[in-house]
């Protein structure tokens, strides 16, 4: 009886990703990216603790929804406007682990900024990831502008932008949604709600229970999905993506995610989050929940899991070596690129 029900369940679960149009290879690759992002994240913190990096800010717990939301997108054609927790999303979009570590080490060939910005400020023109700053919320109007240009120029591009729930208190966030709503822009407005803006809890950030309800104020659907349910995240993102592609306008998506780590390497979340709560959020780790789903579906055997882990370790070791061996910026270049340089092609 017990064995029977487990088998039935596995069968139902298996059809869950197939029903969404995802192949076995798709979900295994999604798992790989979630695990890669987590392993890279762990590596960044180890390097920081070892004194190899000044600072880390990353997104443990956010990987599942990021991989799922990026999955339907055209990685070459579409735009992504990230925030500092977008480690997994940037990897899926096309940045390599070495690209991210070059930023962590502030090296000359860091594609995000050539070592000019703090770690976690991603950007990459080659894979259409817009450069990020530190003031929270400013990226939202940029996404609306990119999407407006796509519409006017008829490029067929879709733009995805991400932020945490704290950023939704900024005026820029609201102004961007309003503008995008008016012009029905092909845009996915992602909010990764981990219930903390550094130390400020959700109840002090907003008077509504879900960010998604705010979509109504801007004439767009607002949906909310559990960030630990990777397939559900994919489902809502795919629907929003298709809607944008059809020209039906933007969607506001809230992913409710666990924040497994502190805000940054300069923060200790144990000082303001109860132990039991930290215990509880660990149960919602998307790496665990999605891994468990794949095991139930018979796709992630122990051998396969080990194989993936080994591959990731190799890749991250290699990326660390590459980044570590890369040169630091030449101080004589400090005054370059305040403006476009004469004779150089316009960016």
């Amino acid at each position, binding site marked *: 009886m017990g064995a029977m029900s487990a088998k039935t369940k596995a069968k139902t679960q298996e059809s869950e990703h197939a029903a969404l149009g995802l192949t076995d290879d798709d979900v295994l690759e999604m798992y790989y990216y979630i695990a890669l992002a987590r392993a890279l994240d762990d590596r960044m913190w180890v390097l920081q603790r070892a004194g190899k990096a000044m600072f880390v800010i990353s997104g443990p717990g956010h990987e599942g929804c990021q991989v799922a939301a990026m999955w339907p997108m055209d990685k070459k054609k579409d735009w992504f406007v990230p925030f500092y927790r977008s480690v997994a999303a940037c990897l899926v979009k096309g940045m390599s682990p070495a690209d991210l570590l070059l930023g962590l080490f502030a090296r000359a060939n860091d594609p995000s900024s050539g070592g000019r910005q703090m770690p976690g400020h991603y950007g990459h023109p080659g894979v259409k990831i817009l450069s990020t700053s530190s003031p929270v919320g400013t990226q939202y109007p940029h996404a609306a502008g990119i*999407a407006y240009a796509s519409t006017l120029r008829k490029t067929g591009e879709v733009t995805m932008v991400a932020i945490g729930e704290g950023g939704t208190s900024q005026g820029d966030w609201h102004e961007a949604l309003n503008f995008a709503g008016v012009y029905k822009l092909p845009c996915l407005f992602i909010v990764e709600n981990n219930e903390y803006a550094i130390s400020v809890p959700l109840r002090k950030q907003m008077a509504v229970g879900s960010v998604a309800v705010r979509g109504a104020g801007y004439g767009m659907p607002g949906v909310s999905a559990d960030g630990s349910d990777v397939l559900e995240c994919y489902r809502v993102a795919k629907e929003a993506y298709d809607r944008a592609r059809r020209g039906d306008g933007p969607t506001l998506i809230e992913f409710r995610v666990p924040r497994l780590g502190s805000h940054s390497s300069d923060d200790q979340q144990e000082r303001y989050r109860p132990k039991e709560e930290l215990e509880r959020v660990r149960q919602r780790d998307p790496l665990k929940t999605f891994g468990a789903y794949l095991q139930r579906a018979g796709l992630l055997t122990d051998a396969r899991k080990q194989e993936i882990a080994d591959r990731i370790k190799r890749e991250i070791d290699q990326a660390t070596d590459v980044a570590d061996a890369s040169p630091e910026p030449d101080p004589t270049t400090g005054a370059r690129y305040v403006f476009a340089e004469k004779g150089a092609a316009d960016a």
Partner: protein
Amino acid sequence: MPEVRYIDAINQAHHLAMEHDDSVIVMGEDVGAKGGVFGATMGLLEKFGEWRVIDTPLAESSIAGVAIGMSVNGLRPIAEFQFADFIHPAFNQIVSEAARMRYRSNNAFGCPVVFRAPYGGSHGTALYHSQSIEAFYAHVPGLKVVAPSTPYDAKGMLLAAVQDPDPVLFLEHKRMYRLVRGEVPGGEYTVPIGPAVVRREGTDLSVFAYGWMLHETLQAAETASKEGINAEVVDLRTLAPLDKDTILKSVAKTNRALIVYEDNRFLGYGAEVAALIAEEAFESLDAPVLRLGGPDVPGVPFAKKLEEWFSISQEKILAAIRKLAAY
């Protein structure tokens, strides 16, 4: 060459830029059906349609922020702020984003946006429709700030700004819109962003000004010449990056310098010009560098007599010229 008003020159530049290049768009409050509160964008909506002439929601930060996003994806936006006084909500977008995008991305991304802002005191426009904002922005590396003073320059510099690969804050003193006329060619031409220009040759002292203050200064210099004081008048035109050479060359010739600006005096634009001259032309100087700026009060007051008290008139400039010449 036909003589047109300053506002007409601005309007012509918009039409030509949009005809010339499909990627140029105009956005701002009331820029469409109304043609702008000052008429700068008159006739554009009819010609180029709603998607290229965008009446935006009343939210300045997103006017700047959306324009930045457009500019990284192939468009050349001209974003109008209805009054420079209302640009402040967009400060973060202009300073943290537009001005820093190229530097922070190590040249991967640039923001070719023109931010237009009508500034300065006119008649009866008070604290919130009279502000001079140049000092806030000229301080910021990565942003070009211009304040043309003639219709010829306004048109040519606006066309240059649209073609510039970097963000340009384009300041238009409102007083000039309908008061200042000048010869302007009908077709396209550019006036480069950067060089200052000597508007009046002189030998006794140099006066540096821009925007409407240039016109008041030229009048004052004319009066001074009748008193035997021969003032050179330099139109700075581009406030950032600053044309140091033209300034230093003029001071080397006249040995005396006065900077006239309408903004309140303390830490205003004139302070930087004065510091430049003190540091790099000390040995040429026969007198202290003088600044003539507005009073250090929070804004231009409304009542006529109070407004006159605040404003930099040609009489006040003449008095400063006399003082400098007599030193």
